[in-house]
C-alpha cells in the first residue's frame, strides 16, 4: 500500500489542521496604507499626489515613501 499524501491524511483526519490567519490581503493593504499615511500626515511628508488618494494606491504610496526615506537617509550621511 502506497503512503498517503499530506492532503489524504488531512481528509482522513490524521493531520491536525491548524487554522490559518483570517486576515485578507485587502485588510493588510488597508492597514499598511493607513500606517504609512498616518506617518506621512504627521511628519507632513509630500508624496506628490495631486488629489485625495485611497487604499488602492498602496503600492504607489509605499514606493514613493521608500524614495523619500532613502533620499532622507542619503542626505543625513
Amino acid at each position, binding site marked *: 500500500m502506497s503512503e498517503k499524501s499530506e492532503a489524504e491524511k488531512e481528509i482522513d483526519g490524521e493531520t491536525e489542521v491548524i487554522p490559518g490567519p483570517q486576515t485578507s490581503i485587502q485588510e493588510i493593504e488597508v492597514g499598511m496604507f493607513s500606517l504609512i499615511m498616518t506617518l506621512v*500626515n504627521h511628519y507632513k511628508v509630500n508624496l506628490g499626489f495631486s488629489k485625495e488618494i485611497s487604499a488602492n494606491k498602496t503600492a504607489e504610496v509605499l514606493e514613493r515613501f521608500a524614495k523619500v526615506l532613502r533620499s532622507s537617509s542619503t542626505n543625513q550621511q
Partner: protein
Amino acid sequence: MLDARNLGVMTIGLVAEPELITMKDGKIVKMRVAVPFAGSEKNSEDKRGFFDVTYFANTSQQNAQFVLNQIEAGNFKPGTTLQVVYSLRQERWENEEGKKNQKVVLIAETINYAATNKPAETGTDAVDVALPATF
C-alpha cells in the same frame, strides 16, 4: 507624540457604542474593543482581548472628520470591524491602600473601516459598509 517606535496597526471589533466627550479644544472618542488572539484565559477557548481605545479627534484632520461623521450617523455600532493605527500607553496609578495598578490603553492615531467589514465575533449587527481608507 507620534513615534514610529510605538506604532502599529490592528483590526478590532467594537463591543459597545463609542463614547463621545466634548472638550474645550476638540472631541475625545472612547471605545471598548475586542482584539482577536490578544487574550489569554486558563481553561477558556476565548482568545479575544478587550481593550480601551482613546481617539483625540482633532477636527482639522480629515480622519477625525470622517470618524466623527460616522459616529454621528450611528455607523459605529457594536460588531463593526475597524482598523486602527495605534500607539500603546501604559497608565499607572496607586490606589488609596498604596497598591500599584496598571492598564494598557490604545491611543488611536487613525481609524478606518476594515477592508472586509464583517461581523466581529463580539458583536451583533455589522454595518454593511466597506469603505477604503482615504486620506
